């Protein structure tokens, strides 16, 4: 019971702080919007080329937005030494990890849900019918990114070169997520049958499971001592 209570309190605190400050969501949204804007100018000539490049464009925008958002995940804990309180709180540290993980996941999904309609507008795409499968792919890829990002965020939050170290750690390990996400998005956008890109979805699912469980287990050793 205490375990779920801790997840609830961490999530409550993070959501409330974000609603009050709008620090992360606004910076993430404007960063992603800027990326979209630049892409839409660069690829406005040929619609077919744009369509072929679309999965890559979507995941470049989401990927960099994730790096920006997840890297900041534990910054609020450093202020006023709140991280020390989380360390000495008599609670399972894995529950703290899951609370932060769900907070990051919600934040990233909120940005992605806002961005999909903007992709449709900027690139004049008719992907409304494909939106459910695209959202499932986004969900799976974002779970993997959040699982890793939350772990590396606490790992790098107290070091001076965190802005450099965070992407250096996150990007190489997220390669399977990006490959799986781009390939399955390609399949979904092209209207391929699900069986054609099912193995990529399975890759994302397995990656999510492995990374969430490993990070959950490792988190205690990183936070505590």
């Amino acid at each position, binding site marked *: 019971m*205490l375990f779920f*209570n*801790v997840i609830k*309190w*961490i999530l*409550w*605190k993070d959501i*409330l*702080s974000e609603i*009050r*400050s709008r620090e992360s969501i606004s910076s993430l949204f404007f960063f992603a919007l800027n990326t979209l804007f630049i892409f839409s100018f660069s690829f406005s000539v040929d619609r077919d080329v744009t369509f072929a490049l679309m999965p890559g464009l979507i995941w470049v925008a989401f990927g960099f937005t994730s790096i920006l958002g997840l890297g900041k995940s534990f910054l*609020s804990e450093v*202020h*006023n*030494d*709140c991280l*020390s*309180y989380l*360390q*000495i*709180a*008599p*609670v*399972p540290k894995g529950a703290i990890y899951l609370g932060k993980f769900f907070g990051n996941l919600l934040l990233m999904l909120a940005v992605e849900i806002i961005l999909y309609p903007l992709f449709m507008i900027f690139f004049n795409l008719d992907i409304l019918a494909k939106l459910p499968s695209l959202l499932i792919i986004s969900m799976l890829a974002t779970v993997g990114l959040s699982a890793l990002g939350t772990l590396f965020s606490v790992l790098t939050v107290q070091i001076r070169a965190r802005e450099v170290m965070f992407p250096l750690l996150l990007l190489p390990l997220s390669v399977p997520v990006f490959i799986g996400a781009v390939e399955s998005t390609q399949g979904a956008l092209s209207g391929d049958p699900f069986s054609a890109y099912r193995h990529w979805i399975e890759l994302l699912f397995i990656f999510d499971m492995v990374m969430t469980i490993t990070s959950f287990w490792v988190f205690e050793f990183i936070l*505590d*001592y």
Partner: protein
Amino acid sequence: MAISMVSLLGIKVSHTYRFFKALKEVSLALQQGECYALFGPNGAGKTTLMKIFATLLRPTCGTVAIMGKDSVQDREAARQALYFIGHGSFLYDDLTTLENIKFTIGLRGGLPTLGEMKIALDRVGIGPYTSQKIRTLSAGMQKRLSLAKAILAKPTLLLLDEPYASLDEKGIDMMNEAIFDFLKKGSSVLISSHDRVKTAEVAHRAGILHNKGLKEIPVTELVHALF
């Protein structure tokens, strides 16, 4: 016979930061309802010792036991018994005073009623600021809020690192009254401070950290002791 609540056992409880030895051969035991005051010049190792008690640092060698629980082997049980007010306020700037209390106590598995929270805030003199965000509070008010959280956490061992810092005269008196209340209820209190006069009002025993070791002195001699 008094129960030993906290003990830093072992002939050499020490802590080393890479090549710098911050503490060596420190030994200390606290009884139920007892207040121990730690003194020493800057860099003597007071905060290091407090952090070892608070389970924020592991001793390089030796054993720390809180309520009989080893603070390294059985640290979650040890942590259940203690509450630490350190240099950082452990407060979230975008939450209000009430929300910060709810979060801190909720995380420990308790949930005080609105009435209990208001009583605690009135007790430390910040009752009218229940819905004020932390970023708008002064350092002294934040220290008072930390004390209110400690009152609601009802710890067996209260660790206070520089408890009088940032507090005005009324605040210092209020801090000492609160310490008396904790002691009356059977909690043990460990204080690290530079204010000898105010600390001497509440402390039962005192020690000076000197040359990385702890030397006990009578509380009556605390004000005039040289270190």
